[in-house]
């Protein structure tokens, strides 16, 4: 799995994940991704368009990021999740914790509150 973090407007960043979020992939990227996110400020938009599979460790990573962002008083949203990944999020009630928007504009609206 690859990731990229880029600025999004003045007060947010966009995290683009790509590839299967299985145990091995998450183990490989989570420490560096978490460290980078701790150095950012503002809201976080997670773009999942390139993620065909989300395993339990991938979900754990998303929850950890959500808790990190919430602790610093910012908001988090997701966009682009593929149907099978959205189904996993539904089963896990994850969308109660991290809302999902159908496109980036809607996601930005969520982040703006």
């Amino acid at each position: 799995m690859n990731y990229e973090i880029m600025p999004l407007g003045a007060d947010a960043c966009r995290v683009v994940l790509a590839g299967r979020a299985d145990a091995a992939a998450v183990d490989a990227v989570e420490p560096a991704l978490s460290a980078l996110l701790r150095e950012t400020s503002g809201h976080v938009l997670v773009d999942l368009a390139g993620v065909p599979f989300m395993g339990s460790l991938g979900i754990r990573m998303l929850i950890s990021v959500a808790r990190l962002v919430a602790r610093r008083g910012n908001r988090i949203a997701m966009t682009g999740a593929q149907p099978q990944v959205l189904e996993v999020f539904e089963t896990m009630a994850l969308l109660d914790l991290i809302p999902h928007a159908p496109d980036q504009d809607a996601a930005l609206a969520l982040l703006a509150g």
Partner: protein
Amino acid sequence: MIERNDGTETERTMMSRAAVPDGPVDGTVVHALVVEAYNTELRRVPVGAAPLIIGRVAPAAIVLEGGAVSRRHCLIDRTGDQVRVMDLGSTNGTYVDGVRVAEPVLLADGARIQVGPHTLRYERRRRGEALAAASLASDIARARDYVNALLPPPVADGPVRVAWTFQPCATLGGDALGYHRDGDWFHAYILDVSGHGVGAAMHSVSIMNVMRQRALPGIDTRNPAAVLTALNDMFDMEKHHGMYFTMWYGVLHLPTRRLDYSAGGHHPALLHHPDTAEVRPLPGRGAGIGTMPGYAYRTATAELAPGTRLHLFSDGAVELADGIAEPWGMAQVSATLCAPGDWSEAPDRLYRRVRTLSGMRPLDDDFSVLTLQLA
């Protein structure tokens, strides 16, 4: 090299050497093959100065079962710090990282050698690291034994009969299951801790012990939502090294056959009636246990007809690694579990199917299936 042919066939992987070679001081590089063979635990075979033959029969140093393995299949040869594999004219070929071996191939650390359905991973490590790896493997084996010891025995008679298959993966995947009768009620659950390894297994053991000892003070354990809410409070992932778990928990009232159930992020259970062939998933939307403090779980209810079967299963039954030969998901799991046949064989039937689909490679996750058969 001359093959001694004593005609001995074997049904399992055999090792001819100790796990870690004696002698060299720390810092010495040791070479090993990690053998991932069907239906066996992961094994580490040192590669010493003498060439190693891999084949289907003794006296090959590594004996692997199966018709796709030739009697003398391939040879591992070490010169100094260089380890090569050469094919010995095997019928089905030897592959290194997916490429068929024609000439001897120099192995890089982590190279995967494919022999029939089996995989052997080449590892090059300093002796200290090799000893640590052997020690970890031993710890994992002990943890696996402990989890196994906590699982209740199958139930062969009574109003609810129970069969299950629990096959932990090599690194342990944190699955657990349990059930017990409580007067007119029958409780059953399955759970799956996020992550792998001894940590995940320790977490699943902690939860199992809470469930076994009914250690949920003030909680009516016949109320599934109350049980999950209490567990969610007790096992907040922030206080448990970031680990959460998914769970399906149900309580059957035997006189009325009313099933109350609740789920936290787990796959739906399947209700199956063999007479009508009706299959109905019992969905369980709810937060993974430990992920959201204060989450309000809900209890759902289903009325079960006599003779109904209930199947519970974990991620390892549904989510297979990439590269399998055909699509696999909930629909296929359901069709396999609910295929005609003896109720008690359903868990093993699904396990065999999953193993076949995975090319007999070791599974990436624990495999757990629990089947309940109502009278």
